[in-house]
């Protein structure tokens, strides 16, 4: 008997397809949020500023927060004097912990010798890979960045004192103070401090679930050049870096929607959140409060 495709079968197939796809997506969400969160961080507007919204911001009624992270580059050339805060602790620096052995552990083939003739071409071709990242909140990495900003401010103040009346030194000291204030009161305290492929092993290394969150993100190896070649890398992106604000918390954020803090560098954080990361390491907002 010849099988004939009918309109009735099309209807059934289409509805089943839509329902099953939605069910799979929603079951995944339920699984992620079931039981105790994998980690839970108390983040403020410093780590979760409101998203700008992009080109179609005026057509988008949704509110989202951007998970803002940094890496600390204390040892590499980026940390050399003169002090540039954006190189020392930003989201595009070369993390101290991302070296050859870490890249090998993450599955990158870094066996090509750095002084080989084809090394530059080989490492330039490497593209990002998705791995597990460890986010540290208000921990040693942030303290190190803050201490470095403080040392820099101190040294600039001393220089100004040693060169009285010279405008250049005064300006440098003022800038350093401004940078220190930014580090202490405005900048994100969330630092990517490690990476791996095994969530259990990473959690065993960082057991404090109130300060260390595991997330997915991408890392790209880079061949550092200069006086001597070295292998390092960049954390290029978090897989989920935008967190939707549920309708229930909309009232808290709506008044700030028109005064984006990213463009008001002098505004102290105005809200704090409890942000959970679930079994699939996907975040969601658990609680929100205003900072008085």
């Amino acid at each position: 008997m010849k099988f004939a495709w009918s309109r009735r079968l099309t209807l059934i197939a289409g509805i089943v397809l839509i329902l099953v796809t939605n069910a799979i997506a929603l079951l995944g969400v339920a699984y992620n949020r079931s039981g105790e969160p994998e980690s839970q961080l108390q983040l403020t507007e410093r780590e979760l500023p409101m998203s700008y919204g992009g080109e179609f911001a005026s057509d988008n009624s949704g509110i989202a927060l951007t998970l803002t992270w940094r890496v600390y580059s204390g040892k590499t050339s980026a940390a050399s004097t003169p002090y540039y805060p954006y190189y020392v602790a930003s989201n595009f620096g070369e993390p101290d912990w991302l070296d050859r052995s870490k890249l090998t552990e993450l599955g990158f083939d870094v066996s090509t010798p750095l002084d080989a003739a084809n090394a530059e071409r080989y490492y330039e071709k490497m593209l990002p890979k998705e791995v597990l990242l460890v986010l540290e909140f208000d921990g040693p990495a942030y303290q190190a960045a803050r201490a470095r900003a403080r040392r820099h401010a101190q040294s600039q103040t001393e220089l100004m004192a040693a060169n009285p009346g010279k405008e250049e030194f005064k300006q440098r000291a003022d800038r350093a103070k401004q940078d220190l204030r930014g580090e202490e009161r405005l900048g994100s305290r969330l630092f990517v401090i490690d990476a791996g492929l095994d969530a259990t092993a990473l959690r065993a290394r960082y057991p404090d679930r109130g300060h260390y969150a595991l997330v997915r993100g991408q890392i790209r190896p880079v061949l550092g050049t200069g006086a001597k070649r070295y292998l390092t890398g960049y954390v290029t992106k978090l897989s989920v870096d935008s967190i939707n604000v549920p309708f229930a918390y909309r009232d808290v954020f709506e008044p700030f929607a028109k005064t984006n803090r990213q463009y008001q560098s002098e505004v102290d954080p105005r809200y704090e959140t409890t942000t959970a990361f679930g079994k699939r390491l996907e975040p969601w907002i658990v609680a929100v409060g205003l900072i008085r």
Partner: protein
Amino acid sequence: MSSASRTDAQQRADDIRVFQRELERLERDGIVRLSDAQRHALEQHHERVLAEYARTFDIDRDTHAKQLSLGMRVASFLGALALGASVFFLFYQFWGLLPTTAQVAILLIGAIGTFLATIALQARDSTGYFTKLAAMVAFVCFVLNLAMLGQIFNITPSDKALIPWAALAFLLAYTCDLRLLLAFGILCVVAFVSARAGAWGGLYWLDFGQRPENFFPVAVLLFFFPSVISHARFTGFAAIYRVFGLLTLLLPVLVLSHWGRVSYLAVDSNVIEGSYQVLGFVVCAAAIWLGARRQWPEVVNTGVTFFVIFLYTKFFDWWWEIMPKYLFFLVVGLTAILFLFVLKRLRASGYQLFRSAV
């Protein structure tokens, strides 16, 4: 309405028009002469057949109707895209003002509702234009459905979403005989297979476009798919598969022939670029040969177009800097004339050159 029979009906109507014109000429030249009774019977028969087809399948009965149909096809294509965008922005405009359960419910109801509406409309729409509009909206609603679930619940982006999107696009395309939806389904498949190919090569899936070789496997699959599974019942589907197969192969080759550093190959960029330039010409020539042999005009045309693009980009690389501009454009013009001669000869010989080579 059976999609195959609509195509058949249009073909029969076209044949009748051609027959009527030729009969007029033959009678004028005195080759044949029908009696009044025969002529009357023939005219009545054709009139009856055309009226029946027009009523049942909404075919184009004459050249004027055909021209209008082309306009309607363009209008329905643009309308489908615009309506899809409108639905997207409508949801975007209001979703933040709704509780999560309402957001999910609207997305789900929107996807199912527009799908049901499309199937219902298809049963009544003999032209297919309105079905195309509805199908496009249904597809956009389903894409929006999954994309917004990802945004609402902060789900990690995954290439797996491309599978159900492709499935719905194909379901609508094959059920309603819609080439636009087929194209969207094919694009989803291209993205998915290329992302998988990239992931197997160790890349993050969203970076699949940064290594153009990721597109090669799906290009081959698409090109030969209609040869494995017959698409005779569906108007133009086989041609769309083959054109997308060629585009998916030749566009990456074109990119690689100019930017060798984005290749997987760990050799000198100049070697990569040179190799892909040669490959580009070989693939284009092979496409023209195969298209001529199998009578696939779309393959011949795509092959010719890319052959010219490869040739002209090489001319530009070689001579733009060193030649006086009048000479450069003269060479380009002369090459075009040479090409015209070659193609004219091919056409005149009815592809005999290719056929005899087989």
